[in-house]
């Protein structure tokens, strides 16, 4: 009967059916640092996540985010395009109305807000210049 809370750091390695926000990004080496910030935002909020590389193609952050949201068991996805532009989407939102979007400098905040979309608390505001 007792359920252990999810250990966030294991999420990447975990199976598909475990609840997690999905992050879908272009296979660009420059996004590494960004992904670290995005996932840090989610980890701080205590929401599990899974990071996946998008197959080749010309999709932008929004399309990636939507696909990620649809793949997510929590209905929330993040897309990161080759330029590092970030989009947060929800599977139940109209495709052209994502929940949030921002430049690379907003990576941490985007992670927090994807998590907050799951938790259902108000979004965090982007503070001054970013960490990224």
């Amino acid at each position, binding site marked *: *009967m*007792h*359920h*252990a*809370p*999810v250990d966030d750091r294991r999420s990447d390695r975990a199976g598909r059916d*475990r*609840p997690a926000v999905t992050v879908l990004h272009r296979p660009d080496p420059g996004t590494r640092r960004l992904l670290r910030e995005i996932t840090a935002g989610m980890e701080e909020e205590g*929401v*599990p996540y899974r990071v996946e590389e998008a197959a080749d193609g010309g999709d932008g952050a929004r399309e990636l985010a939507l696909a990620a949201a649809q793949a997510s068991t929590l209905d929330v996805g993040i897309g990161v395009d080759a330029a590092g532009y970030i989009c947060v989407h929800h599977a139940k939102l109209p495709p052209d109305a994502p929940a949030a979007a921002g430049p690379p400098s907003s990576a941490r905040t985007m992670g927090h807000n994807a998590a907050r979309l799951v938790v259902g608390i108000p979004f965090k505001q982007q503070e001054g210049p970013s960490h990224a």
Partner: protein
Amino acid sequence: MTLVAGVDIGNSTTEACVTDVGEDGKVTYLSGALGRTSGVKGTTENVSGVVEIVRLALARAGRDPAELQTVLVNEATPVISGLAMETITETIITESTMIGHNPDTPGGVGLGVGTTVAFPELPGCAAGSAVICVVGPGVDFEDAAAGINGATARGVRVAGVVVHADDATLIANRLGEPVPVVDEVTLVDRVPLGMQAAVEVAEQGRTIRTLSNPYGIATVFELDPEQTRMIAPVARALVGNRSAVVVRTPAGDITDRRIPAGTLTLIGEKSKRSVEMDAGAEEIMETLQRVRPLADATGEPGTHVGGMLARVRDTMSELTAMPVDTVRIQDVLAVDTFVPQRITGGLAGEFALENAVALAAMVRTSRGPMELLAARLRTALDAEVLIGGVEADMALLGALTTPGTDRPVTILDLGGGSTDAAVSTEGAEVHSVHLAGAGDLVTNLIDSELGLKNLELAEEIKRFPLAKAESFFHVRMEDGTVRFFDRPLPADAFARVVVLTDAGMHPIPTRHGVERIREVRRSAKRRVFVVNALRALEQVVPGGNIRRTGFVVVLGGSALDFEIPDMIAEAVAEFGIVSGTGNVRGSEGPRNAVATGLVVNYASARAAGAATGG
């Protein structure tokens, strides 16, 4: 060095500590243990429990039971509590005047007025007449809607519908002109036909406005002032509902009757006063204050309160083997409560929260067969067994091992059956009281106010926070935070309010939301412990002036609660005293005070002996 165990036999819990005491009185604490008290405190039934707990403590200290030299036992005067609860109001509907249940899914919105007519009679209704259609069991929603639409087409004004099945939205959605529909009326057959009636359904998230207002009903039925006066209680009973039906019957009425619960007589040492039970807790407690100290309490025979007190006395006499007529009630705590109860005469299983009074009574019995208990323990443990000092003195000594405390110190021992308090002034004079009502009463209030009929679950609700399973993989805690789980939650937890116990997540099988359960839990704790803490302090501190209390140390099982200590801190905050949960020996929290005090007492006597002897 002597291996000494201190043992506190409480009403609920037996606690022990194992220590090494030097010749000079220096005490080295080795370990502690606790467990349920076996049998009634102060009787030989306690032996098995004590032996088990002392052995456990010895094992934890890594010491051989054979080494044990001395066992100190508290002077265990049983303080036993009884508990009874009586409803003092009753709601009765006569002549099917109204339907005031709150179905989950009524249909339509608005107010409709007309003459009640059974669904099969609808075809016979004259064009132009205004009717309220009463749909009995077995009628399909499409047939019902078709029948009503047909009547409307003929010019009959079907102004509202009352249905047996859970079909209100289904019917309303299929009507040409939507009208209010109230459903799940179990006894729909008893709705009087051929009478004027009004059906009202409020918008989602709102409550009705017309039928909950006497002048609204007067407008609808064109009542004169005298008739309005008569119908006013119906309006009052409907306040807060989302839907309702009012039928105008010749002698229909709804009464909120006070049940004559009887008179409680409080016999003080100097004076004696009576108070009606249905006056409520506040008045009872004020009366008690005027006759204090209490010598006994009696209830008018043949009344509810008579029965309540008789039950308490019987339990006491059974537990202690005292003759019933020698049982003296030395304190009572009355608490206002309510009990969800089915309204007599309701047509749809209406419930009302009826008022009730819970009465906890406390009896201090004569000192039990302590010598015999000591002798048995001697045999069982093969050690010297000494009966220690007065329990309150020992508890104070133990409490003073809490870092940061000093005399004058006041202890508040929040137990299961009673709330005890003692004060030790700088002159070391000790004054103590035992008050009725503590943790068990809180559990009982939670059980009855939520209608659980499950004391074990009520105890869990008392002790652990709530959450709501929001998906199969996460819960929202009562503070609004969210917690994720790896595996899906148990199916019976989903969409339920659950209590997050040590042993897992237990669903609470009621319709109450998290907020409601939380409020009942917190208010029960307040009604018992805040009231008793203030009562106890007031009685025990010099001159009743709480500001002069010194250090207040809160002890006992209920001091382990996750919110009671905060409530008491807030309640005494205005007196500007230092009050907090005890931390016996800097490590035991609010536990082990008496056991520790016994050893402290023994050691200082020994040191004094050594000093004079040497």
